[in-house]
Structure formats: C-alpha cells, structure tokens
C-alpha cells in the first residue's frame, strides 16, 4: 500500500539498548532506528529478547544501558504512563486486558492520558463534555475493531482473536503516534491472520501511525512489514527490507539453528 516516503524522518532511535537479568543478557547492545509511518517488524527465535526489547521501549523494564529516544525526547528512564503520554502505546504478548471489566470500559480507561477530569470534576459531574467525548470515542474504536455490538461484555469472555483486537483498540485509545504490537497474530486462525495484515495497514493509514510488530509467523511479517529487524540471543543480527533479510545467511542460520 502506501510505502513510506524515502526521506522519512526518524521517529524512534535506539542506541545500545542492553538489559541484563542476573548473569543473563536478554538484550545486548541493540541499536536501530524507525522511520515515520513505516511498519517495522521485529522477528527472531523464541527467547531472542523481542518482548524484553518492547518492555525497555515502553518503560516497563529499565535498561541496564543504552537509550531510546522518540523525536529527540528521551524515552528510557520514563515511567510507563509517561511513555504512553508521549505517544507510544502497546499490546501484550500474553494479552493484558482488564479482564473483569467490559470491552467499553477497557477502551474508556485508556483515554486517561488524553483527558483531565480530576476527583471533584468527577464527583460533581462538571466534566460532562469530556465524558461524552470519551464515551463516543470508545464506541467508535470498538466499531473499528468490530466489537461495538458486544461493548458491555467482559473482556475475559471474548475469544482469543477478539481479545487481541480489543487490545489494539485499547492501545489506540491512548492516541498513540507509535503503536507497538507484541505478537498480534498469536492464537488467531488462518482467516483472522489474513485479515490482520490489512487491518494493521488500515489502522496505520487512518491514524498516521508508525507501527512496530513482534511476530513469529514469518509469511505475515514478510507481507506486512516495510522493514524487518532480526534479533537472536539478544543481539540484532540484521535490519533491512523483508526480502534481503530473508536471504541473509546469519538470519537463515539463526532460524535453522534454533529449530
């Protein structure tokens, strides 16, 4: 679809990101940059450090060394909710919806950073206009992921694929500029996977987003991503367009050696 312009600006810049857990180096000196508007894939065998890298990027895990900056603003060192306020939003590999709350409420909660009603505004009901806007956007986002007719159901009751979609809607509710998707296709059936590619593109275009995707399913990555980075044992072994990465001998070895 819309390939990003060649001279796109860099939005995310990782420099030497490293994370050690005890003696284990989960992410080792990883540097890369992501351009505005692209869909950037992150692949690698199990345990390569992909999710840890996402955690470093969203403030859930502090890095042992290195930095990440978003349009020149330093992201590493910020608490997760500040990272969200800055415009980076994510989904989780093991889906972390607010399970005992309704789909609608999940999406409403995530608008927190873009709203401002305090305790007393809430208690005295003086933030009506803001509440109405939150409500409307929540419904519209559920529409987008096709769950509006089940808005009142608890998140826990949705199928795997629907939960993944709801999590994307929730992430979009924070009005991100960068969307980080951690294995969005995991647990989806073939038809859902096929629909996912066009859905992610549609979302990217509609919201002017930059998207990072961790994915296991190689055909999906090759189809979807503008560029791909390959992680193996915590180290970045290749970055480039899908076709050339796929031919890279180091990548082939990592995958064959891994299985």
């Amino acid at each position, binding site marked *: 679809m819309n390939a990003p312009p060649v001279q796109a600006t860099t939005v995310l810049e990782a420099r030497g990101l490293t994370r050690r857990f005890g003696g284990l180096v989960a992410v080792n000196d990883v540097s890369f940059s992501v351009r505005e508007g692209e869909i950037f894939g992150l692949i690698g065998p199990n345990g390569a450090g992909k999710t840890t890298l996402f955690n470093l990027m*969203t*403030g*859930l895990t502090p890095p042992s060394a290195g930095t990440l900056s978003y*349009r020149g603003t330093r992201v590493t060192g910020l*608490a*997760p*909710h500040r*990272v*969200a*306020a800055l415009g980076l*939003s*994510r989904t*989780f590999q093991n889906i*972390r*919806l*607010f*399970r005992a*709350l*309704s789909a*609608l*409420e999940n999406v*409403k*909660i*995530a*608008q*927190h*950073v*873009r*709203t401002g*009603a*305090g*305790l007393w*505004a*809430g*208690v*005295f*009901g003086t*933030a009506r206009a803001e*509440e*109405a806007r*939150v*409500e*409307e*956007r929540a*419904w*519209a*986002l559920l529409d*987008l992921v096709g769950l*509006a007719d089940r*808005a*009142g159901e608890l998140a826990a009751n949705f199928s795997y694929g629907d939960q993944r979609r709801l999590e994307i809607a*929730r*992430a979009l*509710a*924070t*009005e991100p*500029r960068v969307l980080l998707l951690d294995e969005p296709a995991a647990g989806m059936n073939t038809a859902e996977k096929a629909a996912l590619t066009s859905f992610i593109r549609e979302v990217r275009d*509609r*919201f*002017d987003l930059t998207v990072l995707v961790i994915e296991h399913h190689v055909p999906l990555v090759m189809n979807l991503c503008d560029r791909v980075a390959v992680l193996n044992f915590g180290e970045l072994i290749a970055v480039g367009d899908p076709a050339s990465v796929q031919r890279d001998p180091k990548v082939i070895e990592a995958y064959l050696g891994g299985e």
Partner: protein
Amino acid sequence: MADFLAQYGFLIVTLVQAGLLGLSLYFPLQAGQLSLASPGFYAVGGYVAAILLTNPAYAGLRETLGQGVFPLTWLAAALLCGVLGLVVGVPALRLRGIYLALATIAFVEILRVVSLNLEVTGGAVGIFGIPQAFGFGERWQYIFLFGPLLVLTLLFARQLERSRVGRAFRAIREDELAADAMGVPPTRYKVLAFVIGAVLAGVVGAMSAPFLNTWNARQGSFDASIAILAFVLIGGSRNIWGPVVGGALLTAIPELLRFLADWRLVINGLVLVVASLYLPQGIVGALERWRRRPPPRRPVPAPSPAELRGGRRTP
C-alpha cells in the same frame, strides 16, 4: 416510637457507623489496595475531636465557637488524617497485596502503642467526659450526623465510580502494570484512594468520640482492622452497598444473638467462617448475580470517523 428509639437507637447509629467504616476500607480496595489502616485513622480522628472538645488548652476556642466547634473537629480530623494518609501512603503503597496489609496493621499497632503512652491522649485510661454533639440528649440523635454522612459518602462513591478517576482505580485493581502502560499513573491513584479512605475514617472517628462519650487506645486495634475487612468482604467488595450491608449485618448479628448470652461471640466467629465459605462474592455480590445488567446504550449521534484520532496532532 420513643421506646423503640431508646432501646434500639444506639444500635441503629452503630450500624450506620459500621457501614461508614466499611466504606473507608472499600475506597482503597477499589484501586486494588488491601489496606487495614482504617481503625488507625478512625482512632486519630476520634482523638482529634476528644482533645479539641475536652482539653483545657482549647477552652477559649470552644467558648468562641459554641456548637460550631463540632464541625471544626470533623474538619480538623479530615485534614490531619488526610495528611497522615499521604505521609504513610506514599511509601507504603509501593508494597503489594499482603505486604501492604501487614504494613497497615503495623501502622495501626504503632499508633495504638503511641496513644497508650502520650499524655495528650490520656494514656491507657483515654479521654472521657466528651461532651455530646450539639447538646444531643439521646444517643439515637446521632443518626442526624452519621445518616447524612453515609448518604453523602454513598453519593460520592457512586459519582466517583462513574468518573475518570473511578475508572483509573478499577484499571489499577485489575492489572496495575497494564494500567500504567495505558497511561494511568498507579502511585498517584493508589495514594488518592488511600487518602480518601483515611479522611472518611477520620471524620467517622471525630463524630464517634462524642457519641461514645469516651475515647481510648482500644478504638484502633488489630481486631477492628479485621472486623472492618469482614464488613467489606462479607457484604461484597465490588459494590458500594456491600460494605454498608456487611457492616450493618455483622454489627447487628451479635445483638440479635443476645438471647444466646455468652455463646453469641462464639456464634459470631462461626458466622464469619460460614459466610466466607458460602458467600465468597459477599451478600451484595450474590444478590447481583440475579440481576442482569442492561447492555450499555450507545450515545447518539454516532461520531464521524475523523473524531477517532482525537484532538491531538503530531507536534
């Protein structure tokens, strides 16, 4: 009627008071924080009122304000407990689950031992001869204080639940880490929920000191912590009516069992065990299952797609 009030007036006020204390624990629980600190703040609030109402140092103040001194005690208790809640809450709320519960038990015990030993709190004897609020001649008249406070608190809680802050509380209760990642700052809201509970418990204490006439270190004890927790869990911890129903019922049961004489406290213990076993969602939780919630109604008009992005643009 007069007979009824004379006989049951004290009990009725106590039921309402128990419901309020239950609510004071319910607020932090809304944000997923198991705090057992309520009796500590309740005791502090009571001491504030008792000291302002009896200590010779404040004789001039009482002279000037007349009956106005009573609202002042509530305000003072609310303020002090709010500040104390902030001071204790900020470090303590870094703890999770049972650790927070234990830290708050420690807080209550430390306050108890300190109040046993301070001169201003009357040491082990406590403070007695606390004047009746607004010259109330009978105990049941305190319903005119606790009743409105309960109504206001329930309204407050209901409004809070429907608001942005209430949603932030629930998000943290469900999954603190995900809430953080979705832009809800957990520490701020956990402390807020804790302070709301502290202020409420403090005001209830300040109203209770004249009601009970005396105030001592027994008011804030570990037993009270667990009793209040039982109000909330047995009433139902997911609905504002839970703590009220639980508090009233668990306070009423020993009275209803009066015919059992000495056995009633034994039976009271059994009630806790049986209720934990058979009403794991609490009484209100069990009742709620029978009521189906209507699906949320979509507001009209439907938004145009352009609004989806929200108002914010790339800097």
